[in-house]
């Protein structure tokens, strides 16, 4: 269980990465925290000619705090967010979720951009970032483009990353003081991959209500106008408005047919809403 022989580069700028990955004469893989890629290399599921290590690039390791949003570099670790080294604009949502990702050893190295690009449907970031309405910024030879987090995962283990592109930052909107959120994941054991995730965020002052059902077979199911499952977001108990039947139908339309799968996913979302928090 050892990787194939590969070349290794650790550039210090995104431009250099873009030049290296443009070489289509050989198989190039970008590596951030290596918490998924490392095992895949060892199992020889990935057999690259060149690994481009992104963690030497300062731009990808910092964040910038704006008025309405915060930009988080792709190589910021889960632990950076958990430990509040990155300013929290989500009223506790991101640090709380980060704290539940796998184990601390994974969080110390695993990165937000790496997790999103690896595109595992069970990953926490896809669900909670979709719930808070975050976007990813991708940079390629032709410049930058911005994609909503829920659209970035095309399918299981497949991100909307075009040839020559690299994810550079995640943009997270600043939630208002009226915002509430919740997150519930069902795992067989601590730190294990989730079997069902429910996430939601409602921000009445900004007129936004989003609900997400994650850890499906593929991309998370996003209910972008979630007033039918959360109400207007101002009621003391948001779960009073929860319509499990409606969510069941949405899941069925999204291709989930197994009744027990639907039951657990509906329950995860309902429990996320029952646990509505505001900080």
């Amino acid at each position, binding site marked *: *269980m050892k990787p194939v022989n590969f070349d290794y580069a650790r550039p210090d700028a995104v431009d250099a990465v873009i030049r290296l990955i443009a070489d289509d004469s050989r198989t190039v893989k970008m590596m951030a925290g290596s918490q998924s890629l490392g095992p895949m290399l060892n199992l020889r599921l990935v057999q690259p000619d060149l690994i481009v290590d992104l963690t030497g690039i300062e731009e990808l390791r910092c964040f910038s705090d704006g008025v309405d949003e915060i930009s988080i570099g792709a190589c910021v670790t889960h632990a950076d967010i958990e430990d509040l080294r990155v300013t929290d604009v989500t009223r506790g949502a991101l640090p709380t979720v980060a704290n539940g990702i796998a184990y601390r050893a994974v969080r110390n190295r695993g990165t937000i951009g790496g997790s999103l690009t690896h595109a595992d449907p069970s990953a926490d970031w896809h669900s909670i970032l979709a719930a808070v309405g975050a976007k990813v910024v991708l940079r390629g030879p032709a410049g930058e483009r911005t994609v909503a987090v829920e659209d970035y995962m095309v399918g299981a283990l497949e991100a909307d990353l075009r040839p020559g592109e690299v994810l550079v930052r995640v943009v997270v909107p600043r939630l208002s003081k009226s915002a509430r959120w919740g997150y519930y994941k069902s795992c*067989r*054991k*601590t730190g294990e991959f989730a*079997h069902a995730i429910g996430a939601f965020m409602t921000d009445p002052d900004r007129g936004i209500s989003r609900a997400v059902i994650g850890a499906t077979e593929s991309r998370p199911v996003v209910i972008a106008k979630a007033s039918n499952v959360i109400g207007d977001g101002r009621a003391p108990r948001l779960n009073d408005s929860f319509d499990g039947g409606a969510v069941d139908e949405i899941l069925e339309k999204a291709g989930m047919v197994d009744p027990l799968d639907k039951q657990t996913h509906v*329950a995860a979302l309902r429990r996320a809403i029952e646990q509505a928090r505001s900080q």
Partner: protein
Amino acid sequence: MFEPSIAPDTDDKRGDGVAKQGVGASVPRKEDDRFLRGRGEYVGDIRLPGMRDVAFVRSPLAHARIKDIRIPPHLRSSVFIASDIAADTRPIRAVSGLPGFKPSDQPILAFEKVRQVGELIAMCVADTRAEAEDIAAAVEVDFEELPAVHDMLLARRPDSALVHEEWGDNVFLETFVDINMEAAYDAPIKITREISTARQSMAPMEGRGTVAVWHKRMDQLVLYTGNQQPHIVRNGLSECLNIEQLKIRIVSPDVGGGFGYKGIVLTEDVCLGWLAMRCGYPVRWIEDRREHLTAGANCREHHYNITVYADRDGKLRGVECEASVDSGAYSSYPFSACLEAAQIASILPGPYDFPSYRCRTWSVSTNKCPILPYRGVARTGVCYAIELMMDAIAHECGLEPYEVRLKNLVRPEQMSFDNITKKHFDSGNYPESLRQALAKIDLAGLRARQKKGEPDGRLIGVGLSVYCEQGAHGTSVYAGWGIPMVPGHEQATARMTPDGGLELRIGAHSHGQSMETTLPQVAHEILGIDIARIKLVHGDTEYTPYSTGSWGSRCAVMSGGAVATASRELAKLIKGIGAHLLQTDVENVKLENGAVVGPSNSVKIDEIAHTWYRRPQDLPATVDPRGLEVTIGYKPARDSGTFSYATHIAVVAIDPELGDIELIDYVVVEDGGQLINPMVVDGQIYGGLAQGIGTAMYEEMNFDTSGQPLASTFADYLLPGPTEVPAPKLGHMETLAPYTEFGVKGIGEGGAIAPPGAIGNAVNDALRPLGAQVLHTPMTPRRVLEAIQAAAESRKEKAPELAEGLPA
């Protein structure tokens, strides 16, 4: 600095300070000084000059004919296949003497046919493991795929494909026992269930690994392998490599968990040995986790069709069972393919006394890796099956499960007791362990809580299981099995050093048993030497007496007994020299606190050792020429085994919407006879419990219909972690074993035996209001939800109008 002699929590049972290190003292483990600092030495830590690495080409298919093996010409000298080694090696053949057994030949490297995924086809050697894997990837094998025998029940049908064509069927061995079964048929209660346990992988933290080198000066193959049974590996290697045992030395360094897997002679060991004898440099193979999960350490897969007969008052009248064990492709060395299934027949009656019994077992061959004996061996599955049935009887009779146990457990006044299958239960008070365990929970309170319901909607359940465990069984038991290994007298060497230190040498090996601490405690009890000055030498065939090794919960009894016997012999020799130095007769002296004490003065053991080795001129001509060194064997007064036992109680809370099971309380009350070191026994129970919880709730090695294993990493093969294993409430009873030194009983495997039964009964107790039950391990959320769903559907079918009013 680590100082075991000043442990604050040890018992000073003699009041003189000395017993703080003796039998019964919770002395901190000597080996922890290196283990907890990360300074252990495992096979993977061994570096020899010029050492090269081996990777294997393994079969990707479960069942196929090998049509062709193509090796790129420039790599030919680095690759070895069956035809290269055929003249010098013999297949692994582990027979059983039980009548009707069909032997299998496990090829060292496969030829003609492969019978399991992961079977070795070629050995590739290179400077690094990565390069060896590159070579392995360049070897091409053409297969003609055959239908895979993937299910042990289908494998017994006449139309099944055959794993070993020459057999004519897929059964290693069928056994049958019938004791007065028909007398139970008039019982008013008859309950039948189909119960099964999943196939598992043993998953010790350290996998297997082998470093082999030919030692020119010693004219000897030296093979380092983390192993529980170094002498047995030497036997097996000698047979497979066709060389005499003088030319083989097995060294087992620190072992990071064994659980049975590290007793087995592997084809990899034979390959490395063969190569090291020819290549002129040391070679190494370190099993990786994928190899471990997919090609190696399978265990546990049982299937039971079981019927119990009982009277209305809960008295068990009889047990009738058909049991199958998926033994995999080959019979492994030394335990054979049949130990597990044949053991089911002899131990299914558990700790209960009843008059009628019938059991038929099949050891079935399939295209999976060989089944190996894992901590508890067949007992975990057997306990799960019989304990679920005891609860079914309780439910049928309207009794509490504990009441049914108390009606049927062997009673203390019956001890020692020969049970229905002629197992000789040596001692104990089984009902008392149950009563003490019950006292650690509030059963009435839990029943009231169940009636009331939980505020969070979860369902509470309580379940118990009781077992007894035969340990340290010896010659009389194993001679009957007829496998390549029969334990006889267990020997130990006790040898003083010139400065008064004591070396103990045993042929068993620790893979976590703490013997570097507990065996010095035994010697200390007799000789009074500070345990800091007693060193255990083990894990090396060159330095230790022959032993069948560490298995069957036998080391405390057998190695402990051998050390005690050798220490007593040594005491006589010490007293002989001491008496001379004190100028008195040996009848006038005693050995106390590390000194020989005479009527008026005393001499320390250090001085006695110094005299024997360094000042022989001070000794008389009549001195015993054995000096201060003894090798002697030990057998308990009766070798049918010790019977430790325990009651486990689990309290669970089930989330009926997600199927999650939480263990909210866990109780163990066990009787291991005299405990040499209670803290070590606690550790054994904690570790066993974790593995039992793994069996009950997490671990599952599934195969698809083509015989492909479906878990190749720990992402797919779930083990319980610290957050999944509750701190149990632990209670000890100490009924002395009648036939062993100090009354010690084997306890090593027990923790892993009872949890699936206790947790299974708790789960079914919780699900009873929904009419659901789970009869298969692991009890996953999915299986819980499916059981609830099935119960709801069956309610609808039976009485659609009634079902409306019941909880979903």
